[in-house]
């Protein structure tokens, strides 16, 4: 009997305390939401006369980054990088978005596959 009583008591206690974990859950959910809503840093790259401006881009390590590539040339270009595992056609006079990272520190070259002789650049990931 005493065991049963303690069990019942415990259950009541849990019922009272149920709100506490609930608030914790809400807090956790909120932080998760905030975390996912936190926009990745935006970096702009322009393509002009088959060249990248800026040709060297610095980004923080272990962070997802949104690259906004503006092609100001009338011709299409393909943003390509073997190191970043990225490939995307950007038609003439248009804007495009490429997400990169999170990446460990290092250098990640990229190039324009349609005009590889001139269109060269690199992403430098720094701690």
């Amino acid at each position: 009997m005493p065991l049963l009583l303690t069990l019942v008591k415990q259950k009541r206690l849990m019922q009272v305390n149920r709100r506490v974990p609930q608030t914790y859950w809400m807090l956790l959910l909120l932080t998760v939401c905030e975390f996912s809503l936190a926009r990745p840093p935006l970096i702009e790259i322009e393509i002009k006369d088959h060249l990248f401006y800026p040709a060297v881009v610095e980004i923080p390590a272990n962070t997802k980054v949104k690259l906004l590539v503006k092609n100001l040339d009338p011709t299409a270009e393909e943003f390509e990088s073997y190191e970043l595992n990225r490939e995307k056609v950007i038609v003439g006079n248009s804007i495009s978005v490429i997400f990169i990272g999170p990446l460990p520190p290092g250098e990640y070259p990229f190039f324009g596959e349609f005009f590889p002789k001139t269109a060269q650049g690199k992403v430098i990931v720094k701690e």
Partner: protein
Amino acid sequence: MFLNSITLVLQEILEAALLISVLLALTQSFPKMKRWIILGIFLGVVGAYLFGAYIGSISEWFDYVGQEIVSASMQLSISVLVALIAFLLNPARARVYSTVMLSTICPVLVMLSITREGAEIFLYLQGNMTNSVYTRSVLAGSAIGTGIGISIGVVLFYLLTGLSSKSYWVVSTVVLALIGGNMAAQAILLLTQADWITYSAQLWDSSAVLTEQSLTGRLLYSLVGYEATPSIVQGVGYLSVALLILICGLTTKIKYIEKRRQRHAQ
């Protein structure tokens, strides 16, 4: 520019050529299938032109990642259709209904693979046509790239059809599995690029052994989907689709052979 255009065009053409020659080899016993595949090639060229022409506005969809989403959906459809082909053409399953299904699947499959890759060639050529300095070398390079790509396809077709009927089906299924796995892995990469799939850790780094930039690396990329630094999700996607296709194409065949053996024994 000359060498670059050869490899660029060759790389794009190889994927489609591989698929077309396997399909042609596999559907040899279906007399009218050649026509359907040729229709698929025609539709693919039209599709590539349209995809290339409208890629600018397609790119703006879904917050500027429309290109990735559309390409990835095409690649995933290719994976599914390749698995269906393996399932239908499985010697244990070849029935009348599969002929009808095959004549719809084959042209769609060919169309999808040419549309995706062809659009890139189309944009590349368009961009270089306006740049008179390179026009000649780019055109010559592209023609050579196309020639090499088609030749490899033809060689593969004769290699497959030259095999004995036993190994022919197994080899074809393995090629289908590689194509399907490759497409799934590429689709996953594109969805990661679009931030629709969250980043996953790197599975391995074989860039010290074979870089993706090298000619071998680029050819292997088109043929079997070689990546020097794939992610875990890509690896899982590749393996599961390839396994699915192998199961679709090979398992019942084993049962079928066993049944025949049992019948012979009786």
